[in-house]
C-alpha cells in the first residue's frame, strides 16, 4: 500500500471537481470491495482517492416507471438484489447480484462500482512474481500457457486472456442497459455494450470512461423478456465464487409459444460481458426446446478459443446456456 490523498466530497458536483482537480492517477472509491483489495496488493497505486460512497445523490433506485428501470451508481448490490420489482419482473438482474460475492461484500459494494470490477486472474493479482500485460504492459502474460482453468474462452488476445469477473454487467448487457456518466465536460450516456473493452494489444485499458468521469446511473429499458429471465451461474462452490460459466437468458414467447424475443449474454467465460446475438437469432421466431436451447448454446460458444485447462468450460458453457434458456422459458410470459 502506498500513501495517497483522500477526499470525501459532500455533493456529486464537488466530487466531479475533486476528481478533475486531483488529476490522472485518481481513483473513485465507492464500496471499496475491489479497490481496497487491489491497493493492499499494490496492484492499484492511486495517488489520490475520491470517496463517493456517502453521496446520497447516487443511491436512488427507481423500478416503478413504465419505460425504464434506474439504479443510482451508489446503490448497494444487496439493496438492488432485493428490489421486489426486480425479483418478480427481472429475475436475471436480481439473481446476477444475489449470486455475486458474499452477503457481506454485497452489503458494501455498489452497482456502479461493480461494473468495473477487475479480473481475478492470479497472475494479475500475484504481483511482480508474474508477468502481466494488464498490470505491467509489455511484461507478457502468465496465464497463456499457464493455469488457465478460469480464463477467458471468448474475447482473448495474444496479450491477455483474463476473464471479466462480474455478473451484474452480464445481466444488464442482456437487457440493453445504458450508463449515465458525469464529468467535467457534462453528462453523457454510454450503452453498456460500449463500456467494456476487449484486451487486444492493450489489456491495461479495460473500459471507455475517461479518468475524470464517474458513472452516476444505470438505466434499463423495460422489456417483456424481463419476466422470463434468469442468471444461471455455475461455479466451484455454491456461494462466494466466480463463475466457471454463467448465462443471462431472457425469453418472451408469442401466443403460440414461439420465441418472440430472446436475450443471451455470457459471464465468467469472456474478457468482457459477452452478448450472443448469433445465439439469440437461433431462437427468435422458432420454438424453445431442449434441442434449440443446445443449438443456441453452441452458437454462443462457436468462437471459443480454449487453452490448456479450460476447454471443458466450452461444453459446460453450452450446457449452462441451455439450462438458463430452459429456466427462462418456464418463467416466460406469452
Amino acid at each position, binding site marked *: *500500500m*502506498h*500513501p495517497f490523498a483522500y477526499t470525501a466530497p459532500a455533493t456529486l458536483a464537488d466530487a466531479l471537481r475533486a476528481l478533475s482537480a486531483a488529476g490522472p492517477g485518481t481513483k473513485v472509491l465507492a464500496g471499496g470491495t475491489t479497490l481496497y483489495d487491489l491497493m*493492499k496488493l*499494490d496492484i492499484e497505486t492511486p495517488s489520490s482517492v475520491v470517496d463517493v460512497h456517502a453521496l446520497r445523490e447516487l443511491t436512488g433506485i427507481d423500478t416503478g416507471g413504465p419505460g425504464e428501470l434506474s439504479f443510482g451508481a451508489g446503490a448497494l448490490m444487496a439493496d438492488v438484489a432485493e428490489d421486489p420489482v426486480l425479483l418478480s419482473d427481472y429475475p436475471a438482474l436480481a439473481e446476477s447480484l444475489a449470486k455475486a460475492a458474499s452477503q457481506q461484500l454485497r452489503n458494501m459494494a455498489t452497482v456502479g462500482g461493480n461494473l468495473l470490477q477487475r479480473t*481475478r486472474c*492470479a497472475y494479475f493479482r*500475484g*504481483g*511482480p*512474481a*508474474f508477468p502481466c500485460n494488464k498490470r505491467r504492459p509489455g511484461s507478457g502474460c*502468465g496465464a497463456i*500457457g*499457464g*493455469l488457465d482453468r478460469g480464463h477467458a474462452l471468448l474475447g482473448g488476445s495474444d496479450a491477455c486472456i483474463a476473464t471479466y469477473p462480474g455478473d451484474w454487467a452480464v445481466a444488464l448487457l442482456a437487457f440493453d442497459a445504458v450508463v449515465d456518466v458525469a464529468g467535467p465536460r457534462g453528462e453523457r450516456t454510454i450503452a453498456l455494450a460500449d463500456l467494456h473493452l476487449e484486451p487486444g494489444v492493450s489489456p491495461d485499458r479495460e473500459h471507455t470512461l475517461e479518468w475524470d468521469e464517474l458513472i452516476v446511473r444505470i438505466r434499463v429499458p423495460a422489456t417483456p423478456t424481463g419476466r422470463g429471465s434468469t442468471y444461471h451461474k*455455475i461455479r*466451484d*462452490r*455454491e*456461494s*462466494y*465464487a*466466480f463463475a*466457471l*460459466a454463467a448465462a443471462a437468458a431472457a425469453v418472451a414467447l408469442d401466443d403460440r409459444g414461439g420465441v418472440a424475443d430472446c436475450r443471451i449474454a455470457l459471464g465468467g467465460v469472456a474478457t468482457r460481458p459477452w452478448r450472443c446475438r448469433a445465439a439469440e437469432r437461433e431462437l427468435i421466431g422458432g420454438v424453445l426446446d431442449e434441442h434449440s436451447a443446445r443449438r443456441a448454446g453452441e452458437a454462443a460458444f462457436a468462437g471459443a478459443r480454449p487453452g490448456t485447462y479450460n476447454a*471443458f*468450460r466450452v*461444453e*459446460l458453457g453450452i*450446457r*449452462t446456456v*441451455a*439450462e438458463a434458456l430452459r429456466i427462462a422459458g418456464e418463467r416466460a410470459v406469452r
Partner: protein
Amino acid sequence: MTRLTRVGAREKVTGAARYGADHTPEGVAYAMPVVATVGKGRITRLDTEAAAAVPGVLLILSHLDNLGIIPAGYIMADGYAFQSLQPLLDDRVAYRGQPIALVVADTLVAATQAAGLVRAEYETEPFAVELGADGAETVLQEEAIPLPFLADIVVGDAEAAFEGSQVRVDGTYESGPQHQVPMELIGSVVEWQEDTVVVHEGTQSVGALRGGLARQLGIDPDRVQVIAPYVGGAFGQKNALQPHLAPLAVAARRAGRPVKLVLPRAHTFHAASFRPVARHRVRLGADASGRLLAVIHEVDQQASRHDLLPATYTEITSRLYAVPNFRGRQRHVKTDAQTPGYMRAPFEHSAAFAMESAVDELCQAIGRDPVEFRLANDAEVDPVTGKPFSSRHLAECLRRGAELFGWAARTPEPPRDVDGTMIGWGVATGAYPSLTVPTLARLRADAGGRIVAEVGGHEIGQGITTVLTCAIADDLGIDPDAVTVVVGDTRAVPHHLTAGAWGTNSTLRAVHAALRELRAGLGAAAAGRVDVAAAVTASGRDEVVVEAVTQGPGQPPEMIDRMRAGLVALAGPEYPDYVSFSFVAHFAEVRIEPVTRRIRVPRVVSVVDCGRVASPVTAEAQVRGAVVWGIGAALRERSEVDPRYGGFLNTDMAEYVIPVNADIGRIDVAFVNEPDFVLNPMGVKNLGEVALVGVAAAIANAVHHATGRRVRRLPIMVEHVL
C-alpha cells in the same frame, strides 16, 4: 454425565476471546515480511534504501545483518520448527514465497508500504515443484530415514498373493497439495520484559515455541514465556515454531519495544506447512468369494529439499482389513517448496481415499456389496503385529451407519430423480492411530470449592477445555462452573505439542491421575462426590495443590524430559501388549445435476468408534467439522501450482475454495461409545482426526455409483463428470 455446552463459546461469539495477535501492548511496533519472487536461487542485491526512507520505519532485517540466531531444527528431527530452513540467515532462496527481509515500523501502514519498496535482484536456478518434474529427486523412506516405525510394512508375500489372486485391482490415486487455511492468520506479538521474552501467538505447541526460540536466541528456556489461551484454527499449520518468531524477537530487542506481526493471508500459503501431494498405487487381490488376499500400497509423497516429512500412510491401510499379505512402500520426492507437513489426518485422509476407492473398485469387480465386503474382511487381531486391538468396533460403525443411512435400499444401478438428477451412494471406512504423549496436570483446589486445572494441552477449537471441565466436574461431583482449565501457557506447566488427536487421551490420563492425587490430598474417598470447599478448609491450607505426570504405556521415562523440553515424544499405536486405533464408517449421498453436473452432497452419515465419548457436544461438532473438511477435500480444495513459477497461485480465501454453508447438507453423527479401558482408565480413544478419514473416499465412491466414473484424483470437479 455433565452435558456441557462448549467452554468459551460465549467469549468466542461475542468477540471477547483474545487470540494471540489481539494482544496489543503499549508502544507496539509492526512487522511485515518481504518474500522472494523467484522459484529458487540466490539474492544478489537487496535494495532497502527506499523502504528505509518511509517515515516510521525502525528496522529492516535481512541476511545482510547478523541476526545472531541459529535455526531451531526440524520438528521431526529433534528440533522445533516446521522446517529446518531458517530464512534471513543467508542469501539462498529455496522456494518462491520464502521471506527475504522483515520490515519493522511504527505503524502497520508504514511497515506494509516499506515492505513493498524493498527491491531484490536474484541469480535464479532451475527448480522443480511437481512430483514428475525434471530435477525432483526420489528417495526411499526406509533408507532415507532409518527408523523402525518408518520402515516398509511387510506381511506375508503380497506380490505372490496378488499374482495368484482371481480378482485384481490396480489403481493410481492422487491428492494434494492442500493448505490448512484456518481463520486465524499466522501471527505473533513478541515483547521483552527485562531479560525474558514473552510471546503471544496462536499455536498448538507453546513448548516448541519456548524450546525453539530459546535455542535460536541462545538463552535459557526459562526466559521464554509463550501464551496461547485460544487458537483460531490450526489443523496442523501451527504445530511447530514458525520461522518468523526468532527474527521478531531480535527485532523487538533491537527496537526496544514490543513487535506485532500478522501475516497477510497470501503469505500464509508459503510461510507454514501444507498437505503435500501424495500419489498412491494400490493393488488389491481377492478370491472370487470376496476374501481379500493381498494389498500392495506404494506411496510417493512430496518433500522439500531440506526435510523429509516422515510418512505413515500404510500404517492404517495395513490394518483396515484382515489381509494376510501386505506390502507397503513409501518414498519421498524432493521439490523446491517449503517443507510440507501435517494437515488434519495428514496421511490417513489421503491413504483412505486411495485404499477405500480401490476397495470399492474391487467390490464392483466381484459384484459384492461394499458394506458386506468390509464386514466379511474385518480384522479381529492386528494383521501387522498379531497383537490384539485395544478395541475395534469398525463392524459396528458399518452396521449402525448402514442402518441410519438406509443402505439396504441401495441398488447397483443408480437411481435417477424425476428431473434426471443422478443419485449415488458411497461408503468408506477409516482409522487413525491412538497416540499418547507425556502430559503434566496440576490441580489446585481452594477453600471456595473451586478447582483450577493447569494442563499441558492446547485449546485449538477441538474442545479440550470442555472435555477436561466435564471430566473434573463429573469425577468430583461439582458444578462445572467451579472448574477453570488453563491450557496453552508455559507459565503454568510444561506442554507437549497438541496434534494427532492425542489431546483427549493424553490430557485426560494426566487429569485422571491428578484427580486421584487430589482425592488423597483432600482426604476424600477414591470415588463419589467430594465437598471440595469443606475438605480444603479442613486441611488448614489456603489451597491443596497436586500434580501428576502421565505417559503412554511402555513409553520410556526420558520421553517426559523431551516433553518438558518442548520436543515431540509420541507413543503408539503399537504398545507393548496391543495396538490401538480409532475407527469410522462414512456413508455419503451425492446428487449430480443432469445437465451442468454440479455435485452436491445432501447427506452424510458418520459413525465413529472413539471409545467413550468424553464430551458429546464438542465431539459431535468435531465430527461435523471433519465431514465438512472431507467434503472440501473431495470436491473443492486444491492449492494450484504453476511449474514455471513455483510456489502456490491461489493464495486467498476467494480462490482457495473451501466449502461454504451452501455446500453442506445434512450430517448425521453417531458414536459406538464403547469405552476402551485397555488404552486408558477413562476409556477414551481419539476423535479429531479419524472423523475426517474416509469421507473423501465415500464421496468419490458415491460419484462413481451415480455416474459410472471413477475419479482417482482429488478434488473431483465438474469437469470430471461433465
